[in-house]
């Protein structure tokens, strides 16, 4: 039973959270099987969010460090108003971001990290679609597919509105 290891690990993390589920799990009734599947989906979603967050923050921080290494003036006398906000052109298209990264530009990496951060909730919804398919829960599959479609649609409209 692969679910057993996951379940016990969680029990120790949440403390008394297992009090109710504990005896049921030993008997392994039909309701328990469903509960364990939901638990597995929760853990998978939690991992997706965590990986998305860790990767994007790492790329953003690398980009920030790179920006300051490449522009010594930023930590010297250059006022922030002249390098951030209106008046300073930063890479804001796919092509410009790719070009910036290729030439080792910090801003390109920061934009990549921000894009990964924006995509994290989208990934979370996509993973839950598969999760509910795996759980054989048609109404929730329909709900999550609809949300995913609207989400991708509005992101596409946004990017295309340029």
């Amino acid at each position, binding site marked *: 039973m692969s679910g057993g290891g996951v379940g016990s690990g969680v029990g120790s993390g949440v403390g008394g959270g297992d009090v109710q589920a504990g005896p049921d799990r030993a008997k392994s009734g039909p309701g328990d099987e469903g509960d364990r599947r939901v638990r597995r989906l*929760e853990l998978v979603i939690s991992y997706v969010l*965590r990986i998305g967050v860790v990767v994007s923050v790492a790329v953003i921080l690398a980009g920030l460090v790179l920006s300051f290494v490449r522009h010594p003036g930023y930590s010297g006398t250059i006022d922030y108003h002249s390098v*951030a906000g209106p008046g300073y052109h930063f890479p804001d298209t796919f092509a410009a971001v790719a070009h910036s990264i290729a030439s080792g530009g910090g801003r390109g990496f920061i934009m990549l990290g921000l894009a990964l951060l924006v995509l994290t909730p989208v990934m979370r919804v996509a993973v839950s679609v598969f999760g509910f398919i795996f759980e054989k829960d048609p109404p929730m599959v329909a709900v999550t597919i609809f949300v995913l479609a609207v989400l991708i649609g509005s992101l596409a409209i946004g990017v295309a509105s340029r």
Partner: protein
Amino acid sequence: MNALDFVLLLAAVSVVAGALGAVVGIGGGAVVVPALTILFHVDIRFAIGASIISVIATSSGAAAAYVRERMTNLRTGMFLELGTTTGAVTGAFLTTVVPTSALFALFGVVLLYSGAVMFLRRHEEHQLAESSDRIANRLNLHGAYYDEAEGREIVYKVTGTRMGLSIMYVAGMISALLGIGSGSLKVPAMDLAMHLPMKVSSATSNFMIGVTAAASAGVFLARGQVDPLIAGPVAAGVLGGAVIGSRLLAKLQGRVVRLVFVVVLVVIAVEMLQRGFHL
């Protein structure tokens, strides 16, 4: 102020925004936007771009912990995202039609009202034992979580799904029109209309605001409102703060979370009224 000091200070302010946002279930834009415009004199367009990023950062950073601890009601959150995402798309199409200042003012009034109701209900932290809500029963939206502060498992039933979904539709629309996360509307909807426990409302709102914000983030990225040197430090700081905040929520009493939320709500309401009346 040189660029390095700006980035470091901004990241520090964002840690506070992320921690507060994670506890009360809002995106932290309420802290980030005024901090950027008033403290750092950053153009409002770039402040809003950074705010959208901050909402996604708070949401993903905190939800990773809340989902694992079962504080988030996953199914209810995903069901309500039907409303927020369609609302966001509607809002995107209405941007040219609706006068935003009137909307800011109206939103401010609505927030003051829901803040008042939530404050008056501060002594009622009891959960429903039965629900006759057909959608909630059909989709099995009810839940249970282990409350660390009370030291016991809290089982609750969900009701008012139609009302909740309608408010979420409006919340999604407002997010797209005003460029805010609108967790300030999601939390009262779940607390007052759907009878979720306060901490579950906050955690589930947190879970949802990332998706709402992601739906409109494409527009802000495409319009060039997301400046890497402004949004980058905000994202990093907010993520750090959200991790701290998520540890805090588990240990706080529902009553305390409610009171903090009401205070934040009043502050946001004032902010919205100011922007509505151009004060």
